[in-house]
């Protein structure tokens, strides 16, 4: 089954509230694109989207605030407030586009870089910083926003997503599940097994691969010799490559994949083709392994700039909108900064908490011993 034939089944909405695409000019036919790097709306035979000016401004706002939050986090790491930060710079469209395609009852399994998706889910950005500051391993309740904790071991979460989706299907719900992973992760056996399980059980899950072309220092050629979206076909479900810097295309393609899942047609692999503009994390030094030219070429494809051009050209946003948004960004940054600085260290005893739900004799014993040991210093006045 090809992607195209599947997508074709999707009812097409013909009314365009916002300006229709000017002319098709997709340089790579495999790549779904609705907004060119130059900010021009183009059409795709199988995917379209129909958004109000307000919705478009909303996507723009999401991307800008996410980027600003991300930059602030990077700065906080430089200032020593965080131990580490994994920036999403350049991947805002992939994350906001896919994140905004989700319904509240859908469930998200992120990697460690999905700050934009977290934003869409309503997770307070400061909560994301706890693990990078070293005060916890995950600072939010996954069930509140249906947004699972960040998973660090590469690829593991794709199986959790698959199992969760199997559960959704068992429940007879029409929710969908989305699993994020990277181009590097595509090599992990767990990801392959999640393809097998989801296909065999026809689980309502969307595999969203952000191919940012790097796994730390390794280019995608170290993981595959064909485009990653093609991986899905051999497992019996569609794969589709979308311009990961085009928020409209990411939204449209993810929405279509989610609808497919809801209809009981099983998994889809979406490969969002994008670029990691920054270092892998703040610990990384990309000058050792990649050239500045690549980065420069991708700067021209910036996801935020192209939507801004479009908004401005079409008159969907006025100067005030951008000014207000700048202020809003500053407020967000300030709030995050202050919240992180105020974030208390956990209590020493916290390491004994939640090791088990039903308790464990040894943990109790060790907690008591450690408390007594700590207390002995207090007594000595140390």
């Amino acid at each position, binding site marked *: 089954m090809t992607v195209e034939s599947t997508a074709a089944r999707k009812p097409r909405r013909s009314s365009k509230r916002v300006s229709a695409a000017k002319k098709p000019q997709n340089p790579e036919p495999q790549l779904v694109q609705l907004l060119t790097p130059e900010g021009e709306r183009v059409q795709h035979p199988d995917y379209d989207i129909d958004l109000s000016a307000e919705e478009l401004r909303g996507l723009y706002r999401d991307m800008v605030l996410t980027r600003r939050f991300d930059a602030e986090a990077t700065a906080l790491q430089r200032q020593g407030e965080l131990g580490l930060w994994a920036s999403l710079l350049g991947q805002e469209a992939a994350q906001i586009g896919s994140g905004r395609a989700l319904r509240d009852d859908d469930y998200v399994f992120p990697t460690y870089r999905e700050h934009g998706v977290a934003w869409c889910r309503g997770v307070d950005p400061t909560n994301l910083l706890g693990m990078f500051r070293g005060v*916890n*391993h*995950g*600072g939010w*309740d*996954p*069930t509140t926003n249906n947004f*699972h*904790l960040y*998973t660090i*071991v590469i690829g*593991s979460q*794709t*199986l*959790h*997503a*698959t*199992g*969760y*989706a*199997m*559960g*959704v299907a*068992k*429940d007879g719900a029409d929710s969908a599940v989305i699993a994020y992973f990277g181009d590097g992760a595509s090599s992990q*056996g*767990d990801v392959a*097994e*999640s393809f*097998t*399980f989801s296909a*065999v059980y026809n689980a309502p899950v969307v595999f969203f691969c952000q191919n940012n072309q790097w796994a730390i220092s390794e280019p995608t050629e170290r993981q595959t010799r064909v485009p990653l979206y093609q991986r899905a076909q051999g497992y019996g479900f569609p794969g589709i490559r979308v311009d990961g810097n085009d928020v409209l295309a990411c939204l449209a393609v993810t929405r279509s994949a989610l609808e497919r899942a809801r209809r009981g047609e099983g998994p889809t692999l979406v490969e969002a083709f994008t670029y990691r503009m920054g270092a892998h994390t703040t610990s990384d030094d990309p000058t050792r392994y990649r050239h500045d030219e690549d980065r420069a070429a991708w700067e021209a494809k910036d996801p935020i700039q192209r939507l801004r051009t479009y908004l401005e050209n079409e008159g969907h946003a006025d100067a005030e909108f951008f000014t207000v948004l700048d202020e809003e960004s500053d407020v967000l940054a300030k709030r995050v900064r202050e919240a992180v600085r105020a974030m208390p260290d956990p209590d020493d005893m916290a390491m004994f*908490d*939640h*090791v*088990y*739900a*039903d308790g*464990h*004799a*040894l*943990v109790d014993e060790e907690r008591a011993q450690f408390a007594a040991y700590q207390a002995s210093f207090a007594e000595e006045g140390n």
Partner: protein
Amino acid sequence: MAVQKLPLAKALNESLRKALETDPKVLIMGEDVGKLGGVFRITDGLQKDFGEDRVIDTPLAESGIVGSAIGLALRGYRPVVEIQFDGFVFPAYDQIVTQLAKMHARALGKIKLPVVIRIPYGGGIGAVEHHSESPEALFAHVAGLKVVSPSTASDAYWMLQQAIQSDDPVIFFEPKRRYWDKGEVDTEAIPGPLHKARVTQAGTDVTLAAYGPMVKVCVEAAAAAAEEGKSVEVVDLRSMSPIDFDTIQTSVEKTGRLVVVHEAPVFYGSGAEIAARITERCFYHLEAPVLRVGGFHAPYPPARLEEEYLPGLDRVLDAVDRSLAY
């Protein structure tokens, strides 16, 4: 009738049936657990009665089985996973150690992982490679997991019930060579705590501590020793994480001597943990060092050697004698 005499395997089967009946969220997952009923028939008849939606034949991929069970648990299910043989749990080891064991803590308690992983373990059935191992220490070392092993049909029934009811991940080691041993099961009893050891046999001279398949050997050793006038106490540990050190301590304070017996290799095995901790707790009571009887530091041997490899009656008695000789 509440009290039945059942083979251990059948007790497990009945226990799974009860769990499926009682809680609609309980699922059985694994390779060949459906029509075949598992290679040991522990899930016999369950798919027929509860359907493919609750008793699920999975693709042949252990990481996938445990990983998807985690996802199902996050969705509110209580998966009971079957690993076909001890030696085949390792493809799932990453999911067990890095995800299943740690996710509750990672989420600061906000989510629970009530997943049971059933593993038929141990030797003595004349099998080929990878079908006779005892990897329990590799799980007990990992915080976040609970590790248990029944030695009787009654414990098999009840401990599996309790493992399924537990909100923590439980690695449930089934003594495969005792599957066919019969014992009385009272399905209306009120079971004791899951992680409490039991004095199977009272004695005064030496304590034998064991779990799973080796309990029977120890009981036989106690009988043989009794004929020679030695009074041996046998403690069935039942749980390898947590370990009920209090019960062992009480016994050792009485006997002054302890021999720990397991099939797993001695080196870095559970006997080491027990020896270390009991020595600390009972330093002034011990008349002899804690001795360990177990597997050698070698891969589980081919079947024709397993009788020599496995700790049998004679090796246990030898250790009892050595302990008494101090």
